[in-house]
């Protein structure tokens, strides 16, 4: 561009003005009716054609019994007409993902057919070897397909085709276009035939996916190292591998009008409460939204209190945990495209448990669980206690310590509360940045940032050294809370309680805690009280706050109301000479039954 041209453009008020720039509508341009109209009209025409064909087929099947009526879909007997409707449905020719292959089945005389599949979602080898080869090359060998009809013409039978010529492990007849579209989008291959109102789908799914890897957020020292992946069917298999029981049920639901995402609803029939299963199914089926693309999204649509600071379902990437919860009568949801399972119902205490608790010997499992409870209290209370003591209740601590605290704060111009909030926010910033930075340098950046920032803030006399200690201990404790979302909630409580302590000392702290407990006591997760088994008090089977010996966990947790409450016999270690004998157990059982009767 020559200088004067550039200058002219720069000085011309109309040159870069609105009129020449592309706008989606924020400058008063509304989408033209003629752009929207044809699309809507085409859709309506396609639907109308389908409905009319469906009515014709129904009329034709009218006197032929129930099966004929069931099989009367909206497909026409004309192959080209069906293919044309499919093309319209999939927005061809703009859409290049749908592959349509015309072929002749090697019957005598040859039968015309069309093979359709979605590029990228299917296994080409299966299509070539198990669909195209048998139909195009081997069909003439099969006399059953190519038998002579009564009128002397070739009788083509889809039933025989499915039984003898399509060796795919799952095939199904399809009678309407919606079911065909669903199959195609799932990765199946669909065959249309000349003069047939029935299509056949063959299972050829091969969506892109990664192989099973290790857990990233729920690592254990002892225990399985596999984690869920994005393919929900693989995840179901990982769970089933651990629960080899025919009572394990996987129901398939779909969510999202556009996403049509699969959700596997897993439970153990006879253990999980039917009311729970029905409620989970009811909530998922009631979702009316265009896209649900993962477990985190689905959770927000179905949990009891989506505005709550704590999750109403537990997210886990571990198949072993999922299997364990299923065995306790919970329900698991495996959402396609999400490497997590959603567990329902849950309680607050399940959020601070890990798989490691059970793999360790029970005293150590109990110890780390108590440590996590302690960490929870530290995270929530320590900053607030510090502010309350420093600002309101100096008399509680020895004079020497109080004087030391005062001396460290002497040069700090900010009030203790502002110091604490600044440090807390900095800590949150470092945490968030550490999560978003590429993992190779993330931890280094976090470490450097925290060290340098803390040291610099102390030297600049913006922060007292004790405050760095308080925030560091609190931050460290918050990392001990295993559930990611619960960690968020707990950190948010910290600020609420801090606000109470800052305004009214221990009084405010207690008021904030009281409100928090009242709030938690009223929460429910799929019908289970969130604070159970502490409130309401249930027998805890030594597995809620504490973690007892596995052989003493005889009952399943009551909060999920399992149908079968007992998970093991009273005497599990029957080989143990010190264990009560089976006779004693029988007597005990008899007494129990007597007591109950």
């Amino acid at each position: 561009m020559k200088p004067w041209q550039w200058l002219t453009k720069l000085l011309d008020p109309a040159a870069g003005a609105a009129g020449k720039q592309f706008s989606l509508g924020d400058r008063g341009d509304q989408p033209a009716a003629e752009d929207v109209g044809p699309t809507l009209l085409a859709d309506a025409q396609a639907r109308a054609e389908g409905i009319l064909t469906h009515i014709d087929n129904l009329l034709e099947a009218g006197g032929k019994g129930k099966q004929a009526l069931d099989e009367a879909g909206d497909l026409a007997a004309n192959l080209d007409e069906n293919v044309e409707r499919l093309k319209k449905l999939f927005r061809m020719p703009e859409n290049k993902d749908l592959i349509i292959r015309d072929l002749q089945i090697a019957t005598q005389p040859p039968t015309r057919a069309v093979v359709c599949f979605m590029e990228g979602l299917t296994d080409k080898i299966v299509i070539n070897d198990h669909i195209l080869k048998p139909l195009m090359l081997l069909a003439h060998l099969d006399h059953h397909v190519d038998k002579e009809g009564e009128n002397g013409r070739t009788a083509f039978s889809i039933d025989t085709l499915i039984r003898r010529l399509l060796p795919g492990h799952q095939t199904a007849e399809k009678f309407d276009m919606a079911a065909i579209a669903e199959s195609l989008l799932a990765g199946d291959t669909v065959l249309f035939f000349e003069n047939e109102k029935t299509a056949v789908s063959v299972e050829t799914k091969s969506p892109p996916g990664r192989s099973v890897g290790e857990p990233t957020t729920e690592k254990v020292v002892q225990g399985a190292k596999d984690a869920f992946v994005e393919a929900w069917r693989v995840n179901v298999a990982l769970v089933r591998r651990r629960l080899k029981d025919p009572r394990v049920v996987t129901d398939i639901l779909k969510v999202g009008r556009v996403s049509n995402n699969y959700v596997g609803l897993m439970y153990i029939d006879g253990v999980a409460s039917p009311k729970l299963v029905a409620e989970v199914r009811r909530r998922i089926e009631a979702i009316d939204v265009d896209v649900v693309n993962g477990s985190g999204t689905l959770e927000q649509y179905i949990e009891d209190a989506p505005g709550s600071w704590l999750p109403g379902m537990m997210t886990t990437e571990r198949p072993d945990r999922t299997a364990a919860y299923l065995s306790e009568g919970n329900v698991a949801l495996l959402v396609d495209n999400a490497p997590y399972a959603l567990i329902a119902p849950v309680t607050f205490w399940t959020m601070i448990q890990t798989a490691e608790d059970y793999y360790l010997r029970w005293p150590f499992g109990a110890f780390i669980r108590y440590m996590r409870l302690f960490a929870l209290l530290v995270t929530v209370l320590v900053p607030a206690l510090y502010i309350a003591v420093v600002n309101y209740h100096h008399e509680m601590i020895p004079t020497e310590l109080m004087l030391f605290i005062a001396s460290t704060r002497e040069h700090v111009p900010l009030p203790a509360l502002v110091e604490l909030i600044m440090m807390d926010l900095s800590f949150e910033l470092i945490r968030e940045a550490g999560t978003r930075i590429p993992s190779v340098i993330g931890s280094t950046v976090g470490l450097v940032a925290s060290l340098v920032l803390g040291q610099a803030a102390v030297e600049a006399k913006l922060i007292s050294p004790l405050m760095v200690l308080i925030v560091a201990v609190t931050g460290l404790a918050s990392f001990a809370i295993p559930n990611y979302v619960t960690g968020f909630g707990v950190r948010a409580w910290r600020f609420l309680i801090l606000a109470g302590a800052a305004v009214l000392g221990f009084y405010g702290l207690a008021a904030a805690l009281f409100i928090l407990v009242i709030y938690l006591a009223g929460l429910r997760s799929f019908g289970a009280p969130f604070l159970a088994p502490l409130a309401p008090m249930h027998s805890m089977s030594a597995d809620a706050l504490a973690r007892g010996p596995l052989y003493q966990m005889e009952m399943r947790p009551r909060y999920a109301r399992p149908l079968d409450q007992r998970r093991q016999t009273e005497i599990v270690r029957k080989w143990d000479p010190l264990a009560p004998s089976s006779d004693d157990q029988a007597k005990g059982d008899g007494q129990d039954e007597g007591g109950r009767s």
Partner: protein
Amino acid sequence: MIREEGHIGLLEGAVLVYAILSAKLFISSPGFLIEAGGPAAWQAALVMTAVGLLALLPLGALVRRFPGQGLFRISEEVGGPFLGGLFTLYVTLWFFANAVNGVRNFTETYIGTVLPNTPPSVLTATAVACMVYASYRGLESICRATQVLLPVILAGILLVLVFSMPRLQISRLYPFWGHGIMATAAGGAYYAGMVGEAVILLALGYSFREVKQVRRAGMIGVALFGLLTALTVAVLVMIFGAPDAAQQPFPLFNLSQLVYLGRFLQRTEALMVMFWFFNVAVRLSLLFHASVVSLTGLLKLPMYRPVIFPMAVLVIATSLLPEDSLVVLRIMRDWLIPAGLGVLFVPAALLALALVRGKGGQSHAT
């Protein structure tokens, strides 16, 4: 709807009764018993408990005749719209007056102990905010929260009593019969009005899963409160002596000031006051909620939540009426406790009326 508040069981009911009663131990109530019983105040506490338990006996029979019903429905059915309404109004007003007195007493206690420079209105507003939120969340939430907080509530009393043991002088419990058996028994019976709050089980009885649990919950709660009261007044007498202990406006607070847990944690009263807050907040929430629910029934309103905020404003306004903390204490001793005795016998009166008029039981079932 009121019925949609959830359900409570035996343990929750017992904890509820204990918590609503035990908060009185932090204010001047132990002083009243010591005044009545002298060195034998613990006996007065036991008499108070026994009378309370006796008065609660008819409660079980009454709620069994009217399963799943609360005070307002039972009163109306037994006494008709006028007399039944009077019963409900009496109990409701008593709960409300106790809530108002409790809020003011609570504020005065905190100003007199750990937060002397804080404006009373801030403390009152905070306490009322807590009870409004609790009432808004419903009875089930309050009961469950009380269960969670029970260890802290119990620790708030037991720790002070245990840590005071080195200062106990058993000789101060003598003379054993105090001012005399009759005086002690009369004083204990008079102060049975202190357990009048147990009638909350009648006001909120519709929430119980099983009717037969109502009486047992009441008995357990009152018995636990009675035992702890006897223990507390005995410890107070053994440390301060009966004359001094009777004069203390905040006896348990004064006791906690004497606690020394080593050099690092020298004075724990602020911490104890925090523990006591939970108990007081539970008590106020329950009293407020019971009065809100009973009033809702009395006015035949379908939902209780709209009543909460007007009632909260009333609580704040009326709590500001007494001139000072002495007036607040006098109102409690001279008006609320005697009226509580009447409240305690409301179940017996309703049961007698139901028997005479043939209400409830089979006729109700049909």
